[in-house]
């Protein structure tokens, strides 16, 4: 594995073993390929399919569109296309680790790829990674989670579900006027510290 700026897969021994096994696992077991809603800009079809499967489980909003309907994976792909190509390489490495069955056997006690697992197993895997004692796995979870949630919840049509009004009518706001006061002399003077 190359050393790059944003090493999503920055590993210790456990990670190195997982990656090595993972490479074999991916070679031996195929990913359930999902067709994107539009041509991919950054991700490979395999990485897209893994991401789409993860997004399906991360984003479950009663009354809201599914991740597939909201095209979360397509949105992450579009975002990655604007970033340095190294970022996509590292993101795909993380998805590969999550997908592969051999690493899954080592880490999650599962025999199947992530995309080939039923939803309850996928949820167990994601929860396990999010709380893992291995920082590598928590790191992968957080990276994928942040991008998927960020893409999903930027969609205007979802905002009504959570009472978010979106951009306000600026003309209806009645702003106060700031008050001209001298600055505080110093906010860094020592203060008495009280234990909470």
């Amino acid at each position, binding site marked *: 594995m190359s050393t790059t*700026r944003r090493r999503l897969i920055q590993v210790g021994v456990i990670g190195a073993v997982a990656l090595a096994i993972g490479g074999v696992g991916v070679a031996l077991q195929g990913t359930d390929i999902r067709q994107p809603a539009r041509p991919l800009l950054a991700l490979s079809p395999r990485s897209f399919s893994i991401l789409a499967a993860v997004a399906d489980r991360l984003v479950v909003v009663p009354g809201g569109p599914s991740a597939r309907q909201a095209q979360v994976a397509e949105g992450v792909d579009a975002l990655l296309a604007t*970033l340095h190509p190294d970022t996509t390489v590292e993101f795909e490495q993380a998805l590969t680790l999550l997908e592969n069955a051999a690493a899954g056997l080592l880490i999650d006690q599962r025999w199947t790829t992530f995309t080939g697992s039923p939803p309850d197993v996928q949820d167990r895997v*994601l*929860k396990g990674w999010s709380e893992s004692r291995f920082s590598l796995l928590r*790191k992968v979870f957080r990276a994928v989670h942040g991008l998927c949630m960020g893409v999903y919840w930027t969609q205007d049509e979802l905002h009504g579900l959570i009472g978010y009004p979106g*951009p306000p009518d600026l003309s209806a706001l009645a*702003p106060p006027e700031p008050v001209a006061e001298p600055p505080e002399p*110093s906010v860094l003077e020592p203060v008495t510290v009280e234990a*909470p």
Partner: protein
Amino acid sequence: MNRVQTAADRTSDEVWECDVCVVGSGAGGAVLAAGLAEAGLSVIVLEAGPYRTRADFDMTEKTAMPSLYQESGARTTSDVAITVLQGRSVGGSTTVNWTSCFRTPDRILSHWQEHHGLDGLSPDTLRPHFEAVEARLNINTWPREAANANNQALFRGCDALGWESGTMRRNVKGCANSGYCGMGCPVDGKQAMHVTYLADALAAGARIQAEAAVERLEVDGDRVVAVHARIQPLGQPAPTGPELTVRAKVTAVCGGALNSPALLLRSGIAAASPVGARTFIHPVVAVMGRYEAPTDPWYGAPQSAHSHQFIDRGAGKLGFFIEAAPLHPALAASSLKTFGEDHAAFLARLRHTTAFIALQVDGLLADDVGGTVTVDATGRPRLDYPIRPPLLEAWPFTHEVLARLHLAAGATEVVTTHTPSVTLSEEAHLPRLAAAPYGAFQHNIFTAHQMGGCTMGTDPATSVVDLEHRVHGMANLFVVDGSVLPTALGVNPSETVYGLAHRARTFVRAAT
């Protein structure tokens, strides 16, 4: 009148000449460029980000993140443990900041004098510069009674606990109090650089080129003889457009605390100095509170209250200050690391949620050297920021303080950003926080304040620029931005950068 030029204006390679080339148009570059242009110098400002104005600010995260933030808001430390929020457009971070303004605290200036030899920076010498920028940017106190629900909760909690709190000063004029500062101000109420000092610079004849990524400085002996930039239109992952070469009598690097040291490193400048070292970030953790009454945490001036109750925690310990933070859907959704229906349930109560943040003051402890900026094989900045024992010591206490503050303010439930979240609803539950894990990937950590990397000092072995912002050993190269700060500040840094840039005008002008 001049206008800001964009990628569309550049169709072929060009060579320009001027008195001063300013690299970066944020809090440092804008204030500097305006003063120099008004003094009659020919000034060219190169900005890597796009030119966006109120007509473009549609108050959505979907538009703002890719167009106004470094790496579409996805910039992180090299290990991905810390999210780095940093602006990237004409106006720099001032386009997206939350308008919180403080003069450099007296105690920090004393610390710099005692430990870093910055004898030229004192409350008295800086006062005229702060007064000047406060007048231009309309920096005034936001009335306590106008505080939004998030900030009222902070005031209320501090009052109940007997903790110190204060009102915030903001650089606004005709603020609509909408709460969308982080997505660009749609009414130009925020006195960001693109509506103030950059407008002044244009009026005085300066030339501003957006979407021009500076790749390197060409050096001959102790002089920069050319600035080499390449056009990078918004949305392109790398600069591949026409080349722009600027030959200037003087160059001022004002790209901010990650980009400025990276440019010096790419250019092989100041190799004998610690370029990139001592980078500080006010590491931030957040704790959320849920309240019975709606808080609508997206509404109103994002920050109008602060508490410095725990700024000094005693010898060997990191202090911190407390502020409120707005919550818009994508930011909130990516902050809480649950998933599935649990996560959706959290979002469903967003309008009853308030976030308090604690910003640790790094760089003041004797052995706290902060992070380090280097460049990767492609020349991009890389920030390594190890999480050291003082932070690990501080965070349990910090979380406890923020939780107590919420409970004292009336929160019915307190939720951390751990995975899984730690939740509590009364003070008897506080020991849960002491038992929680802390550190990288255990909970959210982010930074919106980047400082240092080209630190100011008298010794080239321990600093990069002298007290007049000139790079040690270089005759015509200056650094004028937050990267010169030798420590973190313990307050939001924008006004310190405005003031220092105002002071630096004299030194840069004298070098032309």
